[in-house]
């Protein structure tokens, strides 16, 4: 058994693959986790942002907006912080190999897309991708500020 399946049910969220569900359910789940685990406001924002981007990508691209598919999100506490593990049953896709969007040179030429994964890379402390037998797993790591200060 791997460490990502050892959570209590309270720290696991199963989400229906609809964009409206992301906004409706995820912020409240994060709020509860932040309260339970004394997560800082900055880290809480980063969790919120990373999940919105990753989950909306799964809904729009992985599941091609097909609703009623499942996405499972787990919170895994670790010695130096925690990880959010996101699993889907979409066709294999590693979002980490996508290129960052070009830096826009002018407002007129700016693309309004492609920022999602770029933002996840900026706000998470580490990200790993694992292909699954029937889907994808993304592991998003956050190091707690107290731990990173102690390391420094």
């Amino acid at each position, binding site marked *: 058994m791997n460490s990502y399946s050892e959570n209590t049910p309270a720290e696991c969220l199963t989400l229906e693959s609809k964009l409206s569900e992301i*906004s409706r359910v995820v912020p409240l789940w994060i709020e509860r986790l932040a309260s339970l685990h004394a997560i800082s406001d900055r880290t809480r924002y980063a969790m919120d942002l990373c999940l919105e981007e990753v989950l909306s990508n799964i809904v729009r691209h992985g599941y091609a907006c097909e609703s009623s598919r499942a996405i499972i999100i787990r919170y895994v506490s670790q010695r130096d912080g925690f990880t959010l593990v996101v699993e889907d049953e979409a066709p294999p896709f590693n979002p980490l190999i996508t290129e960052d969007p070009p830096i826009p040179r002018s407002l007129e030429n700016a693309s309004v897309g492609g920022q999602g994964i770029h933002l996840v890379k900026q706000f998470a402390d580490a990200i790993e991708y694992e292909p699954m037998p029937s889907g994808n797993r993304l592991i998003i790591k956050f190091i707690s500020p107290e731990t990173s200060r102690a390391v420094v």
Partner: protein
Amino acid sequence: MQISTEELEGGITRVVLDGRLDIMGAQQIDLKMNVIAGAKKAVLVDMQKVSFIGSMGLRTLVTPAQAIKGRGGKIVLFGPNEMVEKVLKSSAIDTLIPIHHEFQSAVAALQ
């Protein structure tokens, strides 16, 4: 997500956003933002009460900004909180739409 507008002196429109500019928040105000962008030439987007912005929210700012600039107008962002500003800077939006933290400088940039 709430949106309201106020006409200031000098033909400036202050657009006050209040709430989460997440997927649903963006959908709630996109149409109103586009209507404003089609009608106004000097727009101050007051972001003091925006608690969250994601990539969908960035579109809600950039698309109207492109329309305003395309019509020869100006747009500035005013007062984003620290984390919202970090998202704007991480995506280089701050190089396209100026961010101001002083109200007077935001107004001056539109004149």
